[in-house]
């Protein structure tokens, strides 16, 4: 269980997140600038808020990012352009990149999970966008941190690929027993991935519950407001 | 915005500086003298000489200050016949041959009989204006055993010596000639001995002298007149010139008129003026050198306490100009062995 009770103010924006998140996949929905990324950055430790943050009763507040049981995947810039695919994944186990045989097989495992076996000697600038984000995902896998934060890492990919990646994340979350938070702009993706949804508005968690809530948006004003009059996207999904 | 205003600001500066340089002075009654800049500086003898000369010539004397004695020569070598200079003031005696070779100099008509330089003066192109002797300067408060000869300096293995490079400085060349006139064919051995306790060989006089003043050496090559500066200008008596029983090597600084001088009459008048009191009386405390004629105003007291040569060494100017590069090579060879 990830327990969040955090406040954060910056310029004219002020947020207060109060939510308890269970194991599995949670999709964060909400308009631009409502505070989805801020929540992820607070949890990841890249910005410092006030309040309480615990995971399985361990306090995370004040802990540097590298010590938190968390891996964050950003929208872009998840790879070092100067390192090969293999090295980029290996530094997830050891910043030095020097691995034992056992760790090597862990990397091999992550490579096969993300279908990157052919690419391991390439440099990031030779990869496609989807491949690059899969490398980042593979690194997240080898780090074996129980929490995975995804800040729209697949938003630049075309729809087919995006759905493919999403299902991969959902599978991995299920197989490895992760607590995954995923920001998305597409409600139908939440339906596709399953699990929970969370709606963020003005720095607050407005709605939190099973993805099936999307079906009953009519009875939930906040959701109805977010989805707007054109609910096609939900129905389509 | 800030960017554009910056550019217009710099453009204004450019424009004003352009105006400043294109405004050329009226040259009709101006005597242009090329000299080295410490001569023409405020504390040098230049301004007072200018004042005295302008009293008698009804003209304007303009100095162009160059970086060194050699600088004067290279300037006219570069300018050639188109030079706007009337008179060159401040060539070292050892530069005379090169200066003459340019073919740019005019003969003078000055009577140099009363000139008191060693071995007298008889040269159709050059008139001497001051003189001195190269010497090693030491600090009386620091140095216990004072060397009494050039040989002492060469032989004393624990004496820390700084001198100047004969390839780049006049005193350096002076020492080269001094060594040659004392040691002759054995000069290379002497150089080798000297080099074993030489602290360093500097590019110019001021580099070496400054290092000495900072305490880097026991003796430094300079002039017998150097102590006079410290006495007169600073009231410091601790610096003295080491005596040299073999004799001192002189430095004579000379002036010459240019063949294509824009103002030959004034130039001729100035050449004669060089040996008069209006010039000579400023040499001592202005340039820290001895005058070349007996002056009516006595020298400051400090000058009489200076080390006097028991004997004056001198090599013929022709020999020097012929052998200079051979002797420099000999020095190089001996000191880099």
């Amino acid at each position, binding site marked *: 269980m990830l327990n969040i009770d955090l406040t954060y103010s910056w310029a004219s924006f002020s947020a207060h997140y109060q939510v308890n998140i269970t194991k599995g996949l949670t999709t964060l929905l909400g308009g631009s600038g409502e505070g989805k990324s801020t929540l992820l950055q607070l949890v990841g430790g890249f910005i410092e808020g006030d309040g309480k943050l615990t995971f399985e009763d361990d306090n995370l507040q004040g802990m540097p990012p590298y010590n938190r049981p968390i891996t964050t995947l950003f929208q872009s810039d998840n790879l070092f352009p100067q*390192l090969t695919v293999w090295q980029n994944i290996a530094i997830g186990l050891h*910043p030095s990149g020097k691995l034992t045989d056992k760790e090597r097989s862990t990397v091999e495992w992550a490579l096969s999970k993300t279908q990157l076996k052919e690419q391991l000697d390439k440099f990031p600038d030779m990869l496609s966008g989807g491949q690059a984000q899969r490398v980042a995902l593979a690194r997240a896998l080898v780090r074996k941190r129980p929490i995975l934060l995804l800040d729209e890492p697949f938003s630049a990919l075309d729809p087919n690929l995006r759905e493919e990646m999403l299902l991969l994340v959902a599978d991995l979350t299920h197989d490895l027993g992760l607590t995954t938070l995923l920001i998305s702009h597409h409600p139908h993706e939440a339906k596709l991935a399953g699990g929970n949804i969370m709606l963020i508005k003005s720095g607050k968690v407005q709605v939190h519950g099973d993805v099936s809530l999307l079906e009953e948006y009519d009875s939930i004003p906040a959701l109805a407001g977010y989805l707007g009059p054109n609910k096609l996207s939900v129905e389509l999904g | 915005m800030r960017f554009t205003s910056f550019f217009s600001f710099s453009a204004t*500066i450019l424009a004003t*500086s352009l105006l400043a340089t294109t405004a050329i002075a009226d040259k009709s009654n101006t005597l242009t003298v090329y000299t080295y800049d410490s001569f023409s500086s405020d504390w040098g003898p230049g301004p007072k000489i200018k004042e005295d000369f302008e009293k008698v010539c009804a003209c304007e004397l303009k100095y162009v200050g160059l970086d060194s004695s050699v600088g004067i020569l290279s300037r006219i070598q570069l300018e*050639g016949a188109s030079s706007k200079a009337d008179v060159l003031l401040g060539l070292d005696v050892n530069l005379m041959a090169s200066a003459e070779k340019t073919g740019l100099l005019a003969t003078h008509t000055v009577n140099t009989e009363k000139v008191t330089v060693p071995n007298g003066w008889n040269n159709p192109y050059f008139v001497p204006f001051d003189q001195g002797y190269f010497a090693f300067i030491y600090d009386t408060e620091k140095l216990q055993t004072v060397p009494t000869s050039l040989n002492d300096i060469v032989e004393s293995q624990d004496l820390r010596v700084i001198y100047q490079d004969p390839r780049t400085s006049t005193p350096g060349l002076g020492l080269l000639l001094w060594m040659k006139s004392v040691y002759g064919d054995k000069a290379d051995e002497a150089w080798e001995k000297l080099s074993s306790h030489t*602290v360093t060989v500097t*590019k110019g006089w001021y580099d070496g002298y400054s290092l000495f003043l900072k305490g880097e050496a026991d003796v430094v090559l300079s002039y017998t007149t150097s102590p006079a500066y410290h006495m007169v200008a600073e009231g410091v008596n601790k610096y003295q010139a080491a005596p040299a029983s073999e004799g001192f090597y002189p430095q004579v600084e000379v002036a010459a008129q240019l063949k294509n001088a824009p103002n030959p009459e004034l130039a001729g008048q100035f050449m004669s003026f060089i040996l008069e009191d209006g010039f000579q009386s400023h040499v001592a405390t202005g340039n820290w050198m001895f005058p070349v004629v007996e002056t009516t105003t006595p020298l400051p007291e400090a000058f009489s306490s200076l080390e006097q040569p028991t004997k004056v060494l001198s090599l013929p100017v022709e020999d020097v100009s012929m052998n200079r590069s051979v002797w420099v090579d000999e020095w190089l060879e001996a000191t880099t062995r």
Partner: protein
Amino acid sequence: MRIELSALSLSLSQWRLLPAFCLILVFTLIGAASLAALLFYGEADRWGSYLSSTYLWRVVRFSLWQALLSSVLSIGFAIPIASALMRRQFFGRDTLFQLFAVSMVVPSIVAILGIVIVYGRSGWINSWIGVEVPLYGLLGILLAHLFFNLPLAVRLLVQAHGLIPQAQWRLALQLGFSRWQAFKTIEWHYIRKALPGAFVLIFMLCFSSFAVVLSLGGGPKSSTLEVAIYQALRFDFDVSKASVLSLLQVLICSSVALLIYRFSLPLKQDNSVLTLTSYRLKDSFWSRLFDYGAIAFALLLIIPPFIAILEPVYSKVFWQTLQDKKMWMAVGVSLKIAIPAAILSVTLGIGFVFVARYAYFRPQLVWLAKLVEHLGSSILMIPGLVIATGLFLIFRQIGWGFDQGYWIVVWVNGMMALPFVLRALVPVFYQQEKRYRMLYASLGIWGWPRFLLEWPVVRGSISQAFGYALLLCLGDMGVIALFGSSGLMSLPLYLFQLIGSYRLEQGSSVAVVLVILCVLLFVLSTRIIGGVSRVKH
């Protein structure tokens, strides 16, 4: 079809670079012509004899050795120091940084005296610890060259450091990189790009170093080609010998540069556009020890000579010097030369980088980028005295005399500062090209409008370039000495005049004024051109 199209657009955009090409052409022509004017002043048949002296080759060997050592040490020490300075905040860091910009323009005699006051026989080290430093010889030369060039190297590397995208630090933070791992994985890749350029620059400076090598070298065993060139030009007026030796110097330095560039690795840059925020990486006792150790080392090496140089502030003479009208006139003359020269130099530099960056990212034109970059730096290999003399000989042909001396001084100074300007400009302009050239190409923005759009990003580097150029021209005395006259008495010349007439104390005070003026001008130009936000590092 596609190939044809790209060829067409290529030639079109090459035309757009015409003004920049013209700048390069003028620069090259003037540089080459002044050397050629000297070469053909004398007879060609004696060229061989100049090169047959054994002493000459001994000098060349020594020059290579000391320049190599000086630049390896400068760069070697600069790497940990730059890295530590980027990582740690401490009181006086910005001031230290400004001081670092100034060290390279301290007149050589002033720096030599500063070093002698610290390390000399009657120096601080000897009187405090009782250890006499064997200063005269290679050690003295290295100490002085480190004083001049270590700060320069640090500044160049810190600039390269600034190009590291923030995303990389964010990743490092998430992955828990240690000090050493962050250096190896991230910093090194960016610093490495700046190394060849910095190395070549410092190598050339040390190879042609003159007064330092003579004064601290301990005798004619330590000498440089520059001494021989000076001797040939000034004492023997053997113009063709001077130019042959200059050519030899150009040849040697170019070979070294080519060698270095050959072994330098291709760059890998990413396309991050994140804004700058600073993250605190994983820290440890040892990494703190290392960083503060590196900073302390830099302070120990650079600061004492500076204190020695600034010591006259406490003397009465200094305050008298401040009331000296002549000194302020010299300050005026220095500014009158340095400001236009710096503007010229930065204009030239921008022309150079426009062409170089255009060529750099087009595989068939990479050679042109290298050529242009090297051309801009090559001016350092030719002694300023040689260029000035050559220019003078040309001007005499045209019928101009020393009346134009001012413009020659401005132009030569501007040219001499170009290598420093290029080092400051090249990294950021290359990065801009790499990231946005497609965008600019698609929008059809080029030339001046593009420059205006880039201005907020590049102004920091331009201000650095301008600052360097300004300081270098302010400190010049080689060029101005040749053309000097009573009308052009710059501050360094005034200083030499004072020292040249026994007035060491007054000269030292003028040196203090020069140093303070340099710091002020550097801060001012980084503020005005660079904008306030860029001043902090």
